[in-house]
């Protein structure tokens, strides 16, 4: 006997009547992810903030996760949608492993899968509200790509989401070069993250930097950046013009 009331299946063919599952606007969001290619692989950085509107509600959210053996996924936007994407990828990797054929999905394949998922959701007016950064190394080949919530995807030597596009990419265009060392890559990412901390309202001062190389994924412990406020102009900015800022 069936005691449960009947419920609309998730991806019903009934069309508009079953859109009770739409994401119309995000609730808990993560801000920028910044990533670059360096000598041995990919470096990616993201802060650990989960904002709830203008409230900095959660300060220990991990927005970068390893995928399989060869990839690293960083996400900005709605955190619940990111968690759902991780479930999809978990299933994808599981099925890949079950073939037990010695082959494993590389970053290019994972990126392609994500692109299809994001674009198809966009076509149904029910997007996953994220901007994703997918980086990885397989068989010596470095890969770094990005997908947005509407399915726009591309690969490049350095990518960023959200505010990172406006504040970090210009720095990277100036200072990135082929075969960066680990130290230089970290310093460059920290330079970008510090600017984001100064100028992005939703930034939080706790971040992680992740590295992916042929050997695998390492995500650093959470840490905070020092900030500089001791410019003499900051001490009494309105001295020359009382009432200004």
């Amino acid at each position, binding site marked *: 006997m069936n005691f449960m009331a009947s419920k609309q299946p998730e991806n019903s063919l009934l069309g508009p009547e079953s859109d009770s599952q739409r994401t119309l606007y995000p609730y808990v969001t993560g801000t920028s992810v910044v990533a670059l290619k360096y000598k041995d692989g990919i470096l990616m950085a993201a802060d650990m903030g989960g*904002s709830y509107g*203008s*409230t*900095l*509600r959660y*300060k*220990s959210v991990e927005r970068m996760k390893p995928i399989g053996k060869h990839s690293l996924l960083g996400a*900005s*936007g709605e955190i619940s949608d990111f968690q759902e994407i991780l479930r999809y990828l978990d299933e994808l990797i599981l099925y890949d492993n079950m073939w037990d054929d010695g082959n494993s999905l590389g970053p290019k394949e994972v990126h392609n899968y994500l692109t299809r998922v994001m674009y198809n959701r966009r076509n149904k007016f029910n997007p996953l*509200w*994220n*901007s994703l950064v997918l980086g990885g190394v397989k068989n010596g080949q470095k890969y770094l790509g990005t997908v*947005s*919530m509407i399915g726009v995807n591309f690969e490049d030597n350095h990518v960023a*989401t*959200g*505010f990172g*596009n*406006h504040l970090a990419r210009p720095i990277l265009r100036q200072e990135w070069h082929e075969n960066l060392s680990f*130290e230089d890559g*970290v*310093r460059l990412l*920290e330079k970008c993250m510090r600017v984001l901390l*100064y*100028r*992005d*309202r*939703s930034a939080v*001062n*706790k971040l992680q*930097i992740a590295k992916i190389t042929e050997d695998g994924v390492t995500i*650093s*412990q*959470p*840490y*905070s*950046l*020092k*900030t*500089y*406020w*001791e*410019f003499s*102009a*900051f*001490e*009494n*900015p*309105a001295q020359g013009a*009382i*009432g*200004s*800022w």
Partner: protein
Amino acid sequence: MDLDMNVNAPHSMGTTIIGVTYNGGVVLGADSRTSTGMYVANRASDKITQLTDNVNVCRSGSAADSQIVSDYVRYFLHQHTIQLGQPATVKVAANLIRLLSYNNKNMLQTGLIVGGWDKYEGGKIYGIPLGGTLIEQPFAIGGSGSSYLYGFFDQAWKEGMTKEEAEQLVVKAVSLAIARDGASGGVVRTVVINSDGVTRNFYPGDKLQLWHDELEPQHSLLDILNAPSPEPMNI
């Protein structure tokens, strides 16, 4: 993710502003972040503005509206001081702010806290929120960051504090609000006003106390990775 920065969004001081009386005067405090949409247009603004030698005002809400209101009131108070022949009282300053805020309530979007010292009433704080209500209070909080401070002040506020206690309370409160309000940030500025005069203070973001889930700032991850391993325990 919204890539459109909307540089034409009105400059708003998300803000946390505070005014507190103590036994001898007042302490005014504020953060220093001015935002245009989600971009921080100025990370070191000065939101505590002088109206007269003995009265200052904390500004929140629209940067433009609060600046123009304080400019007009400074101008009127200057004339008033000349005509009166002695320093204006805090009450007069607050009422001038109120008149502008109330009579232009449909157009203005600014919440202000007036604080100062005069020889008749001593230290006084007046809150003038949106709409132009005038309310004299032992302490006042305002701006978007103040939402996070109501519980804190209910517990921590005490009558008859010393100057040091009052200033520490203000710095702690602004710092707590900065930790949770995305629209507040930067440095903490305070202004102490009493019979001796006006003192401005500056507390940079990295000198403030660390709160829950915050970590000690580092120069770089490389310093952490290259740090020597801790000594093994000796039993």
